[in-house]
């Protein structure tokens, strides 16, 4: 789209400006776009897209590794906590039995050995169920 050239309207030398205008138009022809310009541009854009995707993929892979490490660390901590809980629980029960069994045996009239076996079995079962439920919940 060309606008009307009004720059000649106030020209004091229109008899030479017209020829000069034509001479300049002939001398300053618009340059053509170099061959392969568009293809080269699109190739650069494609390369930049690929580089960006590769960088995103690498970042996602790093994040995935980090989350896996956190998950494993959490699982190990959970197993350690469970073990400590079981050991502490067993110790506490043992101490309670050592203190309370004689009194209980005297009060109920049942011998201590039978009472001890039943109590130990019940506690072991409770501890095992607790441990299994914890493992199941944490591992999904």
């Amino acid at each position, binding site marked *: 789209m060309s606008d009307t050239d009004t720059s000649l309207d106030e020209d004091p030398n229109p008899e030479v400006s017209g020829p000069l205008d*034509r001479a300049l138009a002939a001398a*300053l022809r618009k340059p053509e776009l170099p061959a392969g310009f568009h293809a080269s541009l699109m190739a650069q854009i494609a390369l930049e897209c690929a580089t960006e995707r590769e960088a995103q993929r690498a970042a996602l892979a790093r994040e995935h590794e980090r989350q896996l490490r956190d998950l494993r660390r959490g699982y190990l901590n959970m197993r350690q906590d469970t073990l400590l809980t079981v050991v502490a629980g067993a110790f506490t029960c043992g101490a309670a039995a050592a203190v309370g069994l004689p009194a209980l045996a005297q009060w109920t009239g049942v011998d201590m050995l039978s009472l001890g076996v039943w109590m130990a079995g019940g506690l072991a079962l409770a501890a095992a169920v607790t441990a299994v439920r914890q493992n199941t919940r944490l591992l999904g």
Partner: protein
Amino acid sequence: MDSSPQPRLPLPDSRAADPAAQRDADIELLLGRGEADAAFALIAMRYESKVYRLCYALLRNPEAAQDAAQESLLRVWRALPRFDGRAALSTWIYAITRNRCLTALAQASANLSLTDEAVLAEAEAIPTPSRDVDTAALLRQLVAALPPTPSRVVTLYYFEERALAEVAQMLGLPEGTVKTHLFRARAALLGQLASLGLADPELWIK
């Protein structure tokens, strides 16, 4: 490329009447829908040649112009998702292009040594006029020898086939300023031609 659409401001009345804004309304519509790739395909089709001509006018070297034009369009592509429509798309594209070219010019002048300046001065020397002088080549040299802004105005004016508004937009100048530069440049060229013994208009076109 992140293609999530940016909030777009309503077109102000002054821009709505702007022919360039109307011409690129289809591109801005695609950008508003988040279709940046499709928008860039249209931009490349419509502006590749103009961007190249602007770079050529500013840098005066075909190879440098090609590099600068490609780099400019690459920057347009990267920044396209962030274009918010405050300025006309063409204004925005030309501003990116001019900045790229000015950076290239600054780097080139920083790398220029005295030896290079001497070589350039010799290469750009106006030849002794004669009736057999290549007037077109002479005119190109005279235009290149003008001060930077008038030189660019004259060059682009004829590259863009006398589209004054387009030249003003490409150079980021008001149309009145472009007209003034054209008027003064023509007067300067006429004076130089006369001083070279080429005052006769019949010598200018062969």
